[in-house]
């Protein structure tokens, strides 16, 4: 019986798809507009900077000078330098939080002074298009410059090396002599005759959790817009209860073998299935249009989470109609409730951008748990265990709101 009611509702939607299609397109339009205004490739030109991590295992004068070189002039505006120690650099790289990691090996300064071969290690983030490349070129430039300097000033450097080995300060005359020699040599020697003494070893690490900044941007925004549009879609679907009441088809159904309970259940089930279909459609569209992709592990979390999310949102939409006495009341009430919940839940403005007291209040909006959950799946690769609080909150809302609304609407119809 419920199957026949579902089939009928599906046929009605197929025959009159206008409003539904518009609501399905809305998330794309919103995300596109937001993308054009604030996104990775649009709007005002954003200040571009490269985050370069430097792990200095040498801590010598030479390594300090290399680090110092990145902080000079225009380069300082382009490259955001962050010294790291131990595993923190690798960790940040694994999480895709920097463009590149430069490791200055222990003994770098000594090797330069004694004109030995020395390797710098640069680890690049593959998910960024330009930052790592620029970092690589810059480090390579410094390496070559340093190498030339070592070649040209081999004799004075050897003298400095000897002095540092003996821990005796060179006399003033010797310093003056070394300086003069360096000046002469710089002007005289051609670099192409000399094989490099400083080499740059470049590695690209696999970033586990981050996709491209662009797809992250769209994934975050699709999550936000999708939840809000889902609420509107579910609201429209539950309005059908009023429509059937006003069109007298509900009355005719009640004179036949369909009870009020079955009728409401069919509407709930149809809203739930349509919500899931809408969610699937929007994510498929987002993958095609914005490159928002999910791997198998993410999908494994996304599918059950979507079920809980759609059920909770259906609970909210149904509750609005349970409290409205007429279609006019629900027409006035539902946009207000949806917009307030959506704003508070971070659909329009990221929760982090809200004032602190609103950030605390955001957790009372079921929308917050939905948006946050979707973003954690798509951006942080969170699994179901990590999303237990979200699932618990959403499933509690779903059960309580749907059950309460079911009885309220049933009572209203029978009355």
């Amino acid at each position, binding site marked *: *019986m419920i199957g*026949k009611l579902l*089939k*009928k509702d599906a*046929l*009605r939607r197929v*025959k*009159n798809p206008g409003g539904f299609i518009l609501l399905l397109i809305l998330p794309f339009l919103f995300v596109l507009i937001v993308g054009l205004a604030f996104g990775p490739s649009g709007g005002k030109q954003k200040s571009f900077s490269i985050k370069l991590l430097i792990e200095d295992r040498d801590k010598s004068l030479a390594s300090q000078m290399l680090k110092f070189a990145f902080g000079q002039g225009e380069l300082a505006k382009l490259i955001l330098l962050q010294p790291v120690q131990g595993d923190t650099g690798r960790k940040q790289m694994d999480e895709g939080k920097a463009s590149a990691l430069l490791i200055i090996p222990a003994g770098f300064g000594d090797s330069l002074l004694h004109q030995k071969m020395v390797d710098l290690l640069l680890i690049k983030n593959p998910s960024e298009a330009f930052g790592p490349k620029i970092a690589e070129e810059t480090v390579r430039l410094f390496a070559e410059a340093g190498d030339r300097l070592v070649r040209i000033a081999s004799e004075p450097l050897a003298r400095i090396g000897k002095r540092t080995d003996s821990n005796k300060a060179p006399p003033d005359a010797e310093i003056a002599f070394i300086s003069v020699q360096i000046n002469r040599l710089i002007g005289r020697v051609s670099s192409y005759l000399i094989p490099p003494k400083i080499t740059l070893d470049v590695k690209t690490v696999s970033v586990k959790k981050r996709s491209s900044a662009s797809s992250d941007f769209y994934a975050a925004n699709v999550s936000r817009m999708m939840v809000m549009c889902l609420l509107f879609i579910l609201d429209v679907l539950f309005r059908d209860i009023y429509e059937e009441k006003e*069109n*007298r*088809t509900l*009355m*005719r*159904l*009640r*004179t*036949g*073998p*369909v*009870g009020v309970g079955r009728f409401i259940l069919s509407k709930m089930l149809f809203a739930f299935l349509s919500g899931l279909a809408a969610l699937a459609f929007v994510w498929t569209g987002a993958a095609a249009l914005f490159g928002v992709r999910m791997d198998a592990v993410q999908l494994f979390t996304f599918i059950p989470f979507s079920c809980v999310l759609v059920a909770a949102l259906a609970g909210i939409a149904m509750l609005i109609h349970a409290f409205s006495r007429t279609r006019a009341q629900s027409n006035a009430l539902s946009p207000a409730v949806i917009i307030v919940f959506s704003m508070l839940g971070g659909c329009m403005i990221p929760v982090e951008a809200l004032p602190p007291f609103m950030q605390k209040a955001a957790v009372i909006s079921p929308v917050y748990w939905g948006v946050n959950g979707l973003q954690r799946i798509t951006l942080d690769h969170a699994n179901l265990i990590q999303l237990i609080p979200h699932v618990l909150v959403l499933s509690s809302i779903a059960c309580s709101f749907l059950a309460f609304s079911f009885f309220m609407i049933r009572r209203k119809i029978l009355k």
Partner: protein
Amino acid sequence: MLSIQNLTKSFSGLVAVDRVSFEIRKGEIFGFLGPNGAGKTTTINMICGLLNPDAGTIRLDGADVMTAGPAIRNKLGVVPQEVALYEELNAVENLTFWGGLYGLRGAELKKRIHDLLDASGLADRAKDAVKNYSGGMKRRLNMAAGMIHRPKLLLLDEPTVGIDPQARQHMLDLVRAFSRQGTTILYTTHYLDEAELLCDRLAIIDHGRILASGTQEEIKRIVGENRLLMVTGRFSRSSAEKMTQKIRQLSIVSISENNAVYSLPVQLGTGKFLEALVSGGFKIDNLGVKEPSLDSAFIKLTGRELRD
């Protein structure tokens, strides 16, 4: 087929149906006649289970409708006053859905749909969305949907309200066709001519109470061999009452402000009545004469015309 005893329903203290009792025999068309607000639709809603009565019993084929469970609904077909169809769907899709709810499927359902569309003259528009139908076409499909599962009792709630004469005639033909197929029909209307044309027996209801029931002849006998004289104008109540002193056989049916209805034997003629009106100082705006009929019976029973 259907037996109703002492059916009562009140809404916030207002008695909408007051101890209504009547019986419908198998295969007949039973007319339920009364003005708007008389309690016809409330009675129908209780029969089809949309409303619970405060008191009384409804028995269909011997089973109590209130306690028999949903299975008894299969014996009932309801055609609501307003069109109750899915306007986005076409006629076939609508009938397929309504038939499917009652367990019809496959070839049986297809044949039934084909027959009903033929009978209601909609076969050539079967694939058009209902929203593109005229009012009359929607009404016919509305009736076909009520008949899709071959109910034993078809409840028709004023099915011809608001449609043009041609569509109305088509609807009446359809009702007769269903009746010929053996369906028992409860036909509510406030059109006396429809009741006279269609109904084997009827009941007249007003203010929630059955005023008379029986065959048309039995109801007409309530008026007897009298004609009704309806006077509208300016006159006092006492002068209206004095008319019966001037003409002995004259009786008062009802008197209200500027309106009086009298009953006068047919053989007396109206000349003496007119003389009495003039001599009584009546300033007459309108004078109506009703020969013995369902209409005059209704006026005699309720004190007003059905269109009031």
